[in-house]
């Protein structure tokens, strides 16, 4: 079982950032850094920092909601390498309820995740899709099947413990 836990203040900050309109991209993207711990049932990932992708790192690609350049990818890789972090690609689907990864999301992650896994193979890395009120996450890593694994429980800790998944 894989759990992802973070403060509600961090979740709010991520949503606030991703809601900001971009000059030309349809949606925004950021990276969530997590510390990884082993627990008897599997893994616990603890979100601690969110790094938005800078405006000028987006590419003018109308075939997807947002596309970013190699510098942005290197930012994520650097976070994984220097902080030994589990790094999540984060974006929003603008609806309520538990989101799912689209075909485009899956295709993009198959290209992006090996970059993170190569620089920090001892950690899981993944994609976090947030909706208006819930979230879905999938992780990849050398400890898992190549197809990755769903994060079973995503919670935010604040006024109360909100189950996002």
């Amino acid at each position: 079982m894989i759990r992802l836990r973070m403060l509600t203040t961090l979740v709010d900050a991520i949503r606030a950032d991703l809601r900001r309109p971009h000059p030309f991209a349809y949606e925004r993207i950021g990276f969530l850094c997590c510390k990884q711990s082993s627990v008897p049932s599997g893994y616990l990932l603890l979100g601690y920092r969110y790094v938005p992708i800078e405006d000028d790192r987006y590419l003018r690609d109308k075939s997807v909601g947002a596309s970013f350049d190699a510098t942005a990818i290197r930012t994520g890789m650097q976070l994984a390498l220097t902080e030994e972090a589990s790094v999540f690609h984060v974006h929003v689907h603008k609806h309520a309820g538990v989101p799912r990864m689209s075909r485009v999301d899956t295709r993009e992650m198959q290209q992006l995740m090996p970059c993170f896994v190569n620089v920090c193979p001892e950690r899981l890395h993944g994609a976090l899709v947030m909706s208006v009120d819930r979230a879905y996450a999938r992780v990849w890593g050398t400890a898992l099947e190549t197809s990755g694994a769903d994060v079973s429980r995503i919670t935010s800790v604040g006024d109360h413990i909100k189950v996002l998944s």
Partner: protein
Amino acid sequence: MTDQYTRQSFLGAKSAELLQNATVAIVGLGGGGSHVAQQLAHVGIGRMLLFDPDSLELSNLNRLIGGTAADVGASTEKVEIARRMFVAINPAAEVHTYAVQWQLAADALREADVVISCLDSYAARQDLEVSVRRFLTPLIDIGMDVHLVNEQPHMTGQVIVSVPGGPCFRCLGFLTDENLRQEAELYGAAGGRPQVVWSNGVLASVAVGLVVELLTGWQRRRFRAEYLHFDANEHVITRSPRLEYAPKQCTHFAADFVGEPVL
């Protein structure tokens, strides 16, 4: 929602599912922790982690819920008494027991959504809070003590909620260098602390209410911490004024200070 929980359905349409899918840890299964375990079983918590290295002794029988005279003779572990009681009430629950100091099973403790501290020293509470804060886990502490006031015994207690990001035990003035120092000076000389079943029960009930509030959010109350004081002689619970003066954000634990410590 099954019939078992219809009387608490006001907690929310999904409350039974939220409680069933939650993992709650109790550290210390003595007079306070055994009460908490019993009530959490009734409430419908689906997964429990129980930590206590001790076995039942005769002096525990005045207050340890679920303990029997036969358990004293058999030196039954306190975690086993709590497990037995829990599954008797809630057979579908998954209950894991650790008859060791929690530090020796710290990786298991990390799975908890909420931890309840039923420890009896300031130093032990400090150790536990330092650990669970790193894993973004709310901590609820209960405890009671008896002091002599004008040569009369006066029972007091507290229930404190420490939520990551919000004020901690030190921010709330519950843990201070002075009370840790005084406790250290008495180390080995304090003997058994006075405990009675009814005041433990009050404190445990309040703690269980706070667990349910944290897991369901049913009151929609915005709280970053709680500090309740119990005057057990007068049977009165009041909110500590220390809450008003505590910083809104913790000044001792940074929000990004998470995961296993790097030595």
